[in-house]
Each structure stands twice: as C-alpha cells, then as structure tokens.
C-alpha cells in the first residue's frame, strides 16, 4: 500500500512528464510542464529544517519549449539531454573547465602560440599576463601587470615565439606598442616597451605578425585606409623596424582613395611558415570606401621586393568584421573565412597562380549573419573547424562534411 507523502506545485500549467534523477544524485525529479519548461526538484533537508522538495534549476520555457529530457548516468558524471520543440537537441553538459579568472575591466585577451600564457588587456590601459604555476597545472594566475597606455587596450597580439615573449598592444588612442618580457643586466624579468607605431593622428586599427622563416614582418592597418608592412632589422631585437611597403587595400595600384574613414580592419597572415611559399596575408576594412573593404590577398614578390594583390574575396564592398586564414596541412588549396556585416563566408583559393598571376577563388560556404555581427573567427590547428564568436554571445562551430558542404556544426551558448 503506497501512501501519498508529499505534494508540491511545480508549475501553473499541467505536468506532462516526470523523470527521476538517477539515485546516485539523490531523490530528485525532473518535471516537464505544459509551458515548455523542465524543472529539477530535489527532496532535501537543509539547515536542520524538515525534508522538503525544492527546485534546483530549470531549463527552457514558453519561448524555448522542452519536449523531453532524459538523464544519462555515466560513472563519472550526470548528463541530461533535452529535446526542444524547435528540433534542437541540447546537451547542457559540455566537458568544460574554468582555467582563469580575469580582473575587472578586462576587455580583450590573447593566448600565446602554445596556449601556455594569456595576455589580457584592461579598459584602463593595463596589460595582465597569466601563467600557470607549473607546467602540469592548468589554472592560470596573473604574474605580471603593467600599464601601457592611458586609454584602453583594444587588442593584444603575441609576437611569434622565435622572437621572444612579446606582445603588441593596440590601444584606444590609436597606438600600437610592442612590449617584451626580458631580463637585462642580471635584473629580474620585466616587461619593457620596445617600440610603438601610430598614435592619435595616425590611428592603428589592426596589426598582425607574419612569421616567415627568414624574418619577422608586421602588417599594420590604419584608420585612413593605409596599410604598412614593417620588417624587423635585427632578429634579436624588437626595437628596430624598417618600413617595407605602404599601400592601400585596392587591386588597382593606380587608384587612390583619399579621406577614407575606417572603423575596423582585419588582417590575417597565411599561417604556413614555408621557405618555398612567398609571404602573404589577407586584409579587409570596415570603412566608408567600398573599394577598400573587400578582402584582398597580398603576396610579397621577392624578386621585385613589393607587395602585390593576388586575389579578391568578393567585390561588393561589404563591411568586413573579421578574417581568418586557415592552417593548411596539405590541401591543394587555401581556405579563408570572411565575416562581413551580412554573412560569414568560406573561400577556397588556389595555391598556384593562373596565367595572369592571380589566384582563383571560389566561395564554398555562405551563412547569413542576421542580427549577429561576428566579432572573432579562429580556425583549429588542422584547419577543419572554424569557430566564430559574435554579438549574440554565442560561439558557433563550422565544419565541412564529406561532401565538402560547409554547415553549422554546433552552438555554444552561455548558461543564463
């Protein structure tokens, strides 16, 4: 004979399904209700109060209706899979680990080449460097803090490791300064400024290092639409740079556009470090001059010591928010991701030039952005998966299937 012991109201609507949580996690149930929510309730006695059923958490709701939820009970952890009425299957349990806590006012961050050091930029012009206490540990704590600017830091970029532990900081005042971690004259290790480019009159929007085998190059894009390429003079010093080229992001070298006003620039170097291939990068602007906007691939012509535009990824002049050149582990073509204000597109570019010296390009994937403006794009180390982050606060992962069709593979959203 069973008797009713407890009664509780979990929802104003009706309850459509009740599922018990596996016993290893206590006496608890998940209730799916007619309003589309799934709530988890637990029988618990807290603070010497009598045993009560209390709500622990809830998923979904009227706008995000839950159809079913089931617990999977693996040895190490409890997993909950929820099916939503919009056809999405959500897996709230992702293998995740918090590895660092950032200071207040942090607005940008960048990992070094091996993911062992993190540089973060603060709104008050301070850079904080994070390291692990020992190589085996995976929690990062702040080890250095130094002020680089009176304005705020807008972007941090690591210098390639062949040139030491150094970063370039782009600040709100339009300057790009290079800082290096160094120990001089038996002093303890310090971060010291090596050099600086741009400033209030000559605002830097983006700066990226190209790491060719022989030397270090730095491409800097300015708010007036100019692009400058600098080359390091001494491989052991980050102080001295030589201006190698200065041009506008247009395919026709004769066309000149004055008074361009750019709000964003994106530069992405070809990540391949090969002696046989010329140095190259792709560059696009978010500006009032459509001709400057469309991403163009620039290649260094070693024989004539000049930079040449070898390909253009779309010519409609859409505002470019981000660019990412994929690592190439052996494909016969290059892959470049372009995020404009309208869409994310993935481009295939031939590795070898045609008769006119141009590299043929083809748009192989295109996804409208809707209200989401892409903020950042990153390829994984194999160049198989593209991750994007944007103004919708979600991370999206994109992959190509075996037919070469690109699609959105996963969405990672913040828990509310």
């Amino acid at each position, binding site marked *: 004979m069973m008797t009713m012991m407890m009664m509780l109201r979990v929802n104003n609507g009706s309850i459509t399904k009740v599922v018990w949580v596996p016993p290893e996690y206590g006496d608890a149930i998940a209730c799916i209700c007619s309003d589309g929510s799934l709530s988890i309730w637990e029988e618990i006695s807290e603070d010497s109060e009598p045993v009560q059923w209390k709500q622990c958490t809830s998923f979904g709701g009227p706008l995000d209706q839950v159809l079913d939820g089931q617990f999977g009970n693996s040895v190490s952890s409890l997993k909950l899979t929820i099916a939503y009425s919009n056809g999405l299957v959500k897996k709230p349990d992702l293998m995740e680990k918090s590895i660092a806590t950032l200071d207040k006012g942090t607005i940008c961050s960048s990992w070094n080449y091996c993911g062992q050091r993190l540089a973060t930029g603060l709104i008050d012009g301070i850079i904080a460097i994070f390291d692990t206490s020992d190589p085996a540990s995976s929690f990062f704590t702040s080890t250095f803090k130094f002020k680089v600017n009176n304005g705020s830091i807008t972007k941090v970029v690591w210098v390639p490791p062949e040139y030491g532990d150094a970063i370039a900081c782009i600040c709100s005042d339009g300057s790009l300064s290079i800082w290096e971690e160094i120990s001089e004259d038996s002093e303890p290790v310090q971060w010291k400024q090596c050099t600086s480019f741009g400033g209030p009159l000559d605002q830097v929007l983006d700066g990226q290092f190209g790491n060719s085998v022989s030397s270090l190059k730095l491409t800097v894009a300015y708010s007036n639409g100019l692009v400058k390429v600098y080359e390091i003079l001494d491989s052991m010093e980050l102080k001295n740079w030589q201006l190698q080229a200065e041009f506008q992001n247009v395919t026709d070298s004769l066309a000149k556009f004055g008074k361009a006003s750019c709000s964003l620039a994106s530069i992405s170097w070809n990540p391949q470090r090969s002696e046989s291939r010329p140095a190259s990068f792709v560059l696009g602007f978010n500006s009032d001059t459509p001709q400057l906007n469309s991403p163009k691939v620039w290649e260094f012509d070693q024989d004539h010591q000049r930079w040449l535009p070898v390909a253009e990824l779309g010519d409609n002049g859409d505002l470019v928010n981000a660019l990412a050149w994929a690592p190439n582990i052996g494909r016969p073509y290059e892959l470049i991701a372009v995020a404009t204000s309208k869409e994310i597109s993935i481009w295939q570019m031939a590795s070898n030039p045609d008769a006119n010296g141009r590299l043929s390009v083809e748009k192989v994937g295109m996804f409208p952005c809707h209200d989401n403006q892409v903020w950042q794009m990153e390829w994984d180390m194999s160049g198989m998966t593209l991750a994007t*982050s944007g103004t919708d606060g979600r991370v999206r992962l994109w992959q190509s299937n075996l037919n070469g069709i690109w699609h959105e*593979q996963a969405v990672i959203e913040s828990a509310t």
Partner: protein
Amino acid sequence: MPGLLTNSGDSSSIVPYSPTTTTPTVYTLHHGLTSPITPRLSISWSRGNSLRVTVFRSPEPASNSGDDEAGGKVVDLKLSGEDIDSEISDAARWRRIAYGSVAPFAHLQNKKNAMAALAELRHSVSYDGEWSKYVLEYSKQINSLLGSKKSSPPSLIEDPKTVLKVEEPNSLKAAWELLEIFYADKQSHPWIPEQLVDWLSDYDALFSGQVPSVHLRLVEFQAELINMQAVENEPAYWQAISSALAVGWLDIVVKLLRLHGSYQLHQLGARETENGLVEAVAVLVSKMPRMRVDLPSGKLGECYNNKSDFMRAWEKWRAQITKLDCSAFWLQCSHNQTKENLKNLLQILLGNTSTLSSATCHWVELYIAHFLYIRPFTSGLESMYVLAQKCIQLKPVSTHHKLMRLILGILEENTEVVLAECSRSFGPWMIAHATELLTAGSVEAEILLKEERDNLGGISIEESHRLVYAQVLSSHALTWQIAPIYLISCVKHGVGLLEILLYKQPAYHSQVLLKNIEICRMYDLDSVSSNAMKIAGVHHWKHGRKGAGVFWLQQAGDETRLNRIAQKLFDFVGKSISDESFEQWEGLIELLGSESRTAGGLEFLHKYRDFKKSLQQVQDGVSIDAARKAVEALISLMKNPSTPQRFWLPLMYDSLKLLNWQERPLLNVSQTNLLLNKLQELLVARLRPDFVEVALPPEASSSVRVALATNLGRAILEE
C-alpha cells in the same frame, strides 16, 4: 571534413552522402558569471579540439562596479574526446585504451608498409592470406584492451542467493567483436552463427537499457527465485527456461530444469515419470549438436566441425526430439504445467517459429534463435540480411539500439552505414582503429575508405578519420605524445598536422623540448626541431639565461641569431673591459665556439680571452713566461685587422704592467713601434666625428705613451 563533434548525436557530419541540411547541436557554457546576458566572448583554439572561451563580464572600468565579481572567466572546452563513449567516461581507463592500442596499430602499419615494399619489389600483388592473419592478430589485441570476456548469465543462476553483481559489459567491445566476426576473422566464417550465439550471450545485457531482453528476464527471475517454493508452478520459471533455450544458453536451461520440484528426494517416488520427462529434455538440450570447433568449459552441446557430420547428428538429434514429443509418457505426466511447458521447449528445439518468437524479447535474439534451431548454416550476407529483416518484422522496435544498427549495416554490406554508426555511436577511437578491419573485409570498403577525395582536400576517408582521432589525442597533455604515430600513418596530411602539433608545444620547458626533439628525430623533421630549439634559445637568452640561450641556438644552427649575439657580446665587451665582467662572458665566448663561421668578431673575442687569461696570470705574479705569453697575445691582437679600433687603447692600458716590466723590456723594438703606431693612429682617429670614446681614466693614453717610450728605449739598448 568529418565531424569532430561526433558525440553530438547528429550523424550527418560523418555520414557520407548525407543530406546537407543539419541542425547544430546546442551546448551550454557554464562560466559562472551573473552578468551580462549576452557576454562578449573571445575564442582561441588550443591544441587539438580544445577551445578556450574567454567571457568578459562588462566593458565598464574597474572602478564603476562595486561588487566583488571577477571581470571575466576563461573556460577550456574539450569538444570531443575521451568522453565520446559514455561507457568509457573514466578518463584513466580511456587513456589506457588509447595507449594500449598504439602498439597493435603501429605494428600493423609496419607490416603493411613492409608488405607493400615487398610487393613492389616483386611487381606482384601482396599476399592476402598473410595480411588477414595480421589483421586478425591486430583485432584480437585491440579486443583484449577493451575488457575481459564478460561473465555470462550462468553465474547468476549458480547461486541464486547471491546479490547480482556482474561487471557491466561495454558496447565498445561488443561493437568491436561484431566487426571482428564479420571482417577480420575470415577463417571462422563457417562458424558465424555460433559466434553470434556467443556474442549475444556476452552482450545481451547491453540491450536491456533500451528494450526488454532475455538477460533482463533472467535477472528478474533470479531476484524472484529466492521467494519461490515450487518453481514448476510459476509461469516465470518456464518463461525463463524457454527464453534461455531460445537464445542457446543451454547450461542455464539445464540448471533451471534441475531446479524442478520432481528432482527433490521426497518427490521422486510420486513424480517419477514427470522427472523422467524433465531429465529427458535436459539431456536432449545438453546433447544439442553445435556447428563449431569447441565450446568453452561449462557450455553444453556436442561440437562438429564439418558440415556433413553435423547434419547427420542434427537429423538424429531432431529425430530423438520428435520421438520424445510423440512419446506415450506424456499421458502419464500429471503436472499439467510441466507437461505443457516441456512440450513448448521441444517446439523451440524443433524450431517452431512462433514459439521462438514468443520466447525471445527483441529481434536480435529471435535472429540468433533462427540460427540455432532453424537454419544452422549461413549462405552469404545477403540471405542473413533478409532473415534479419524478417526478424525485425516479427519483433519490431521503435528505435534500434546502436548495436542493432551496426549489425544491420554489416549485414546490409553497407560500409557507409557501418562507418557512420562506428563514428556516431563509438567515437573517433573506434573509427580510426576499425577501418583496418573494414578494409580487410571487402574490396568495396577498401575503395570507399582509401579513395582520395577532392572534397576532403585530397585525402581518403580513412586518413580523415585518423586525423580526427589524432586531434582528439592532441587535446590532452597526457596523450599528445601518441598522436604522431597516427599522424605518420596519414600519408598526405599527417606530417602537416604533426608539424603544427609540435610547433604548438611549449618549447621552453626542457622536458617538452626534449620530447619534441626525440619525435622530430624519429620522423626526420629537422626543421621543426631546429625551430623549437630556436624558440627555446631565444626564450632563455631573453630571460637572462645566456648560456642556455646560446646552447640551444647553436643546436638549432641559427647563424643569424648567433651572429647577432656575437655582435652584442662584442659591443658589451667594448663598453666595459674591466676584469670584473670578464668571467661573466668568458663562458659565452667558449660556448659560441672558435669556428670562424660565427662572425669575425668572435675570432677577436677568443684572442682577447687568451690575452686576458695570461694577463691574469701575470697579475697573480707567476713567472716571466706568462708575461711573455701575454705580450704575444697582445701583439697578435693588435696586429689582427678584426680587432676593433676602440679596443686598442683599453688593450694597451690593460697591458701597462707588461710595458713597464721591471726586470727587462718584454717588447722588442718592432713590437713597440707597432704599438706606438697604433697609438698615433688612434690620436688621429679621435678627431673624426664618429669616434667612440672608451671609458678610461683621462691619463690612460699618456700613461701608455710614456710606458711605450720607456720600453722602446730599453729595447734599443738591449738590442
């Protein structure tokens, strides 16, 4: 490219020729920050499939927020990997499997390469028989990693009082064994039905989570058994027996039959006939002819390893069953339930389809029952597939268990389905290792898996799966070291990914650097290791560990940077040529080596060191020989065109003691003249604007001049 996120439950990324519209899986990120609702995120891939997401709380200045919450969090996400199969969720166990499978995999690849080389040499096709032997050996090794053979139901019944405690079998092993049966173990093809019987007895429990199964029925019955008085009166008892019989768990059947009340001593007299019938059925069950080489101990049946012997025994056995079925003894059996249920068992033995169907729980069990009692032979996969379809019709399921889907894919001879199922349900480890079995299994599969595809950037499906698995391995600090073994087996893109993987290791940790160098040496990746050594060298140099810096740059053969360092030393020596700083850079000069290729400047530094050493001995008051040596070194330095002008005066000033040697002049006339000329040259040079003044006492030049003049006078007198 194939999906990395194969645990997403969305098969499309891995299924070849799938529809193009897919719905992304949604994951939730728990960063623990309360605001804002749509945070600004920054992303960065770490090694492999590990993605680091930085969540920024707000863009307001630090002073504006009064609360104690942090300004942001960084979360590391593993987008696939060891958790791919929920059954292997224990990371340590997963790593054991990952490490354990390296040797069999590498061994098989070596064999493959050796055979290919041999075939090329002989201009002939490789010998298939030999290859299948290796594949089977490989399959068995991998299989043994996935866990030992599971204890099957008999032990449950042996002591009904014991609390049920069976090690849970895992579906990874179950899936691997299926592949082994159908693809790797070609020698045993005639015995496939019996292998499937064994397979089901090991893994029927796995189906229990999703569908009712005979295993579950037996487990439940065992729980009830403790409370049963006269089992033969209970329908559950007979149901358990008939189910166990239908799927061929003969030992359990016989054991259960002997729990029958008629065996009890005090019953024997009264229920003699009944007991005889029970025993007769038990004997028939235990004498069942089996088309197999042998049986594990404890299992019942009589083995026949050739078809004709088996058929004779099978016919004879069935005749005995029919005879018993028609026996007059049944009329004397007063216990109705016993009579009916024993007759039912005979129907199972005789292969009555409807009886088999009601005795089994899901279609795989019915399928196995068919092999046992209706069709003990196979005639190709096609007919096996037709039979499976028939069983599915009789025992439909709403959703197929992943192992059911795998079985169907195999029987259908649809490699794509098998691949998709392996990848979707069992993850990158499975698919990376199972392709060897699939390709050994059929030419069609081999073509499908090894054909190079433009859509994949010119690689085969097999290679793409290995790359994906290598990515999974690369994500973890404890497994990246074994990724190279898989990458190197990828002929087209493997080395490219390996180079990036090695580049992304923190070269300034000496342990990592040494491991890196070792791997590079193994696979002839000289440029990669020298780059790592270059990174380490620059790091040490810039962090004040000059010696280590020079050492690694030398190992890297980085002439450009070594030249720059030599130049720096040179400048440094020029600035402070005092004795105190001598020791500081002496070691470095030693390290930089004497070979002239490392800059002309170094040659000077070496001579300078020799000079300093002998001068030191002179200061220490040793013999005149030391003084003579010092003079020789001085003269050679001053004669050497690579000695920079700004060192001339310091050198001579350092040598004042030699110039003013008490006992006798140490420099002869021509030597003294050489130095005087140099001093003169220096005075002229001083007038030039680019002259670099060295930090020496103001009277230095005049003291040197006086000393030289005195020495000249004494030398002339002496000569």
